[in-house]
């Protein structure tokens, strides 16, 4: 398919623009102007509409089919969320308005949304306060790391390390390093839990924090998690919760009750805001009361008279991690989601997420290697190691699923499982969808024996087949000029 730049003709009129009303002479001197025009397309509105419509038809979202990417929580994105985010009162609001009239009186509705969502997230996680500023999960992690740094600095300093299990998502050690800490990786045991002995050895008085996700990236709940929290606190460290897997424990237990001090959530995972092909997301960070003072500036407070105000006077705040209050357009959707589900709905979400993952595991455990015995939580990890005997790898299984109308699960993560297939169905999938997926997986397992070459040729039903990633990295054609 052609690029948009390869379409159109010079001089073809584009979309309609507002009336100029004035002559368009510039009083900017010529030496400050660009010498040549930006070579943007010259296409009609219809050209553009057809182009991007065709592109959208070469894409696959949750709305198209089953999308069981592990740790991504690809649940259905309610259209209710889309609708409320388009209300003019939210959409057209300039972020500097609260600074025009004292008390943010021009934006009371928006401030109320932020405040109420914050209160709800506090109750869901057992934390004292949240900042809605972080613009994605990894951004929340970095914010959390900075809060931890601020806390320790105020307490006297001397903490230079952060412990991260080697089963963790890559953003964890990256965020810790970028936040200025030395990353201490701790090996995982058979179950993907931090090896307790190795952990005890690594835990000293220089450890600022331990970053964990619970359940872990294998979908398992660590029975020793409270012990780990106690040990960490005794050593003077803080517990950081990566909220990527919160969907498993909504209403069943809360990170705050387990002993976590800093928590980040992924609204584009647990709280059903759309992923958008890679964003925008939102990664609000919650903290225990001892860390509230350090939260980023501009917290929304509710006054006695019921009005909302932005507080800018927090002396110990780490400052601003975002230009304003966070990805408000995403916050609105998450707020609508929590209101729509309510207490019972969120609990049921976790229950059915865990039910679905266990069902898939149960149906597939005889056909694939299962690295860890027993029940899983909201996601299960299989291994395609058995299939490698026929020279079929996790990648081939993934590509074969594409031809059968499913988005593949996550492959090759977590790193501690060979040929990993990480499947997170989420609660919004019905039994017949899961059955169709399992049937396809079983068919693929059988083909591994009878016709492995067919799997290695997959996908054949897509606009392109397997692409030469080596050539991409060598030739580096990153833009059309």
């Amino acid at each position, binding site marked *: 398919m052609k690029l948009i730049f390869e379409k159109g003709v010079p001089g073809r009129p584009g979309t309609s623009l507002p009336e100029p009303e004035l002559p368009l002479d510039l009083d900017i001197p010529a030496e400050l102007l660009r010498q040549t025009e930006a070579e943007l397309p010259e296409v009609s509105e219809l050209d553009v509409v057809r182009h991007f419509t065709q592109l959208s038809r070469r894409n696959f979202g949750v709305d198209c089919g089953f999308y069981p990417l592990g740790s991504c929580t690809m649940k259905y994105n309610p259209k209710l969320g889309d609708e409320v985010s388009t209300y003019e009162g939210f959409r057209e609001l300039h972020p500097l308005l609260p600074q025009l009239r004292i008390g943010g009186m021009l934006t009371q509705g928006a401030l109320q949304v932020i405040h109420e969502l914050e209160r709800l997230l506090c109750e869901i996680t057992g934390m004292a306060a949240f900042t809605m500023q972080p613009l994605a999960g990894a951004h929340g992690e970095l914010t959390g790391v900075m809060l931890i740094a601020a806390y320790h600095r105020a307490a006297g300093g001397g903490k230079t390390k952060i412990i991260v299990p080697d089963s963790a998502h890559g953003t964890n050690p990256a965020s810790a390093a970028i936040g200025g800490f030395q990353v201490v990786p701790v090996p995982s045991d058979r179950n993907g839990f931090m090896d307790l002995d190795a952990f005890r050895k690594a835990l000293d008085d220089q450890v600022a924090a331990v970053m964990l996700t619970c359940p872990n990236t294998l979908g398992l709940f660590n029975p020793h998690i409270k012990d780990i929290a106690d040990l960490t606190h005794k050593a003077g460290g803080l517990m950081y919760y990566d909220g990527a897997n919160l969907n498993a424990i909504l209403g069943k237990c809360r990170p705050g009750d387990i002993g976590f001090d800093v928590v980040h959530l992924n609204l584009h995972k647990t709280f059903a805001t759309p992923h958008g092909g890679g964003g925008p997301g939102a990664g609000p960070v919650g903290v225990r009361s001892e860390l509230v003072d350090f939260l980023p500036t501009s917290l929304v407070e509710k006054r006695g008279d019921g009005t909302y105000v932005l507080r800018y006077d927090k002396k110990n705040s780490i400052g601003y991690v975002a230009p304003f209050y966070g990805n408000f357009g995403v916050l609105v959707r998450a707020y609508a989601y929590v209101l729509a589900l309510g207490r019972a709905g969120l609990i049921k979400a976790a229950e059915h997420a865990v039910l679905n993952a266990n069902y898939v595991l149960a149906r597939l455990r005889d056909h694939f290697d299962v690295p860890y015995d027993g029940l899983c939580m909201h996601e299960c990890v299989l291994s395609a190691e058995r299939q490698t005997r026929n020279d079929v790898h996790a990648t081939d299984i993934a590509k074969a699923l594409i031809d059968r109308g499913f988005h593949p699960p996550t492959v090759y993560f977590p790193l501690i499982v060979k040929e990993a297939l990480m499947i997170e169905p989420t609660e919004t999938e019905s039994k017949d969808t899961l059955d169709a997926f399992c049937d396809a997986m079983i068919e693929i397992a059988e083909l591994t024996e009878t016709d492995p070459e067919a799997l290695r040729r997959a996908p054949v039903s897509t606009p392109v087949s397997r692409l030469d*990633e*080596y050539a991409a*990295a*060598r030739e580096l054609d990153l833009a059309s000029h």
Partner: protein
Amino acid sequence: MAERDVQDDLKYTKQHEWVRVEGETATVGITDFAQQALGEVTYIELPEPGTEVEQGKELAVVESLKAASDVYAPASGTVASVNPDLEDQPDLINTDPYGAGWLCTIEGVGESELGRLLSSGQYRELLNQEES
């Protein structure tokens, strides 16, 4: 177990680098085991000639599609030259890791440091252990 070429006239490190020593100059590369683990190499970040390096510290970075691996200096000294062919043909590391896929040379390497490196026999042992 897959074929792993280990050459007898070289010294090795635990991080899968090899060293060919001629007088005070050491030529450095990564082993067959390392290049197999990395997959097709797409790019190598080499140090500037003249850079001072320390044994065990980062010397270069080898990038493939699925990994970016640090290469550590097997001995301390000064980087004398870097392999000019790797820019256009990074896959020399895959096809000829002990020959045309050499990374760089280090000058001023000392006896005692070289003494701490593994012999080819010891490196073979290490590979056997890693495999099991």
